[in-house]
């Protein structure tokens, strides 16, 4: 995990990418690691809402500014470690939620997208060498679009978050064969919001599900997280890894975090 850039991706929206990305980042930071979490979903920014309680004052530089070459990556990162009382540093890069900023991103040229990939590749040297960051997590937009593809190709490996919904599964299958295979990127699949009955399933049934999914997706399943009503009902601005460290959702995510460290 050290010195790695991880992309959290999905085929469709609503699979829980941001919840996973945020809590994974907070879990690592709670353990003392220095983490950078970047919101690369420029069309539907969400980290600004999730971290609203931890951001003091107006945001000086957005991640959009870094992508436009108007600031450096260290200027575009906000340190929220103190606000959330974390052992390690948690630096977040926020996408600008203003409608003008979203419109601007939608009208970017191919040349800008090339420069964007270059910037994403170049930020790792600043983060890992100059800023002493252990791991960088990209929270991306779903499906195949520039912001998500740019993130995937510039990262070391990807976690595809999927539910058991057949549309999600089919979407992931298509994405893996038509996109991930082409780039030969290391990819693992995280099953999220899995039917609640899996909590009372035997280990054997769980293993059967994982085996079925691994066969269908031809990628390792790094974890199966059941659907928890309180996670769905929780306010977006409450980060479980910071508030309720004994929640079963977090225990599952902790297992995922441990497995990731060995990739």
């Amino acid at each position, binding site marked *: 995990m050290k010195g790695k850039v991880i992309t959290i991706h999905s085929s469709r929206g609503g699979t829980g990418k941001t919840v996973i990305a945020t809590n994974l980042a907070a879990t690592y930071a709670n353990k003392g690691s220095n983490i950078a979490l970047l919101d690369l979903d420029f069309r539907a920014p969400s980290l600004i809402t999730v971290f609203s309680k931890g951001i003091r004052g107006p945001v000086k530089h957005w991640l959009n500014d870094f992508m436009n070459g108007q600031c450096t990556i260290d200027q575009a990162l906000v340190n929220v470690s103190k606000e959330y009382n974390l052992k390690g540093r948690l630096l977040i890069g926020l996408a600008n939620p203003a409608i003008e900023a979203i419109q601007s991103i939608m009208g970017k040229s*191919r*040349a800008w*997208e*090339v420069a964007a*990939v*270059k910037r994403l*590749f*170049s930020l790792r040297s600043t983060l890992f060498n100059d800023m002493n960051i252990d791991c960088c997590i990209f929270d991306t937009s779903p499906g195949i679009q*520039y912001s998500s*593809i*740019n993130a995937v*190709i*510039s990262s070391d490996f990807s976690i595809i978050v999927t539910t058991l919904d057949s549309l999600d599964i089919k979407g992931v299958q298509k994405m893996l064969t*038509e*996109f991930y295979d*082409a*780039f*030969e990127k290391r990819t693992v699949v995280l099953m999220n919001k899995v039917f609640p009955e899996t909590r009372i399933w035997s280990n054997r049934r769980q293993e059967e599900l994982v085996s079925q999914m691994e066969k269908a997706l031809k990628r390792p399943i790094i974890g199966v997280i059941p659907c928890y009503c309180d996670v769905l009902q929780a306010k977006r601005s409450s980060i479980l890894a910071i508030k309720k460290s004994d929640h079963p959702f977090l225990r599952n995510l902790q297992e995922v975090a441990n497995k990731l460290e060995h990739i």
Partner: protein
Amino acid sequence: MAAGETATKKSPALDVNVLLKMLVDELIQVNKKLDLMIELDGKMLKMQEESLQRITDKSYRRKAIKPAPDAMTLLSLPSSLRKTVMALYKLKEATAEGISRETKRLRAVESASANQLVRMGYLKKKREGRKVYFYIE
């Protein structure tokens, strides 16, 4: 006097011969000059053709230059070329040997692949001393 008369009488005939000879010489000179002019004209035409060809080639090349490969373009490239571009995105600029270290493929393979991408207009290359560096503009 008689001899002088004969001489004056013969001179017009001699003059005609001399004049004819001079005329023939002149015609030969004119012919040579015409040959030279035809030759020069041919050369001029050839130069014009070559110049036109160069202009056409330049505008063709200008049209053929493509922007650097973005993420979507990468998807449409053959996997062997895609791998080279991906390595260059990471390295910024590199020699064929540098690319081969990143991709773990043979230097010759990377050299062929990078040069193919240069011909396709996706990459640029520059020479620094004896080394040739490839990069994405």
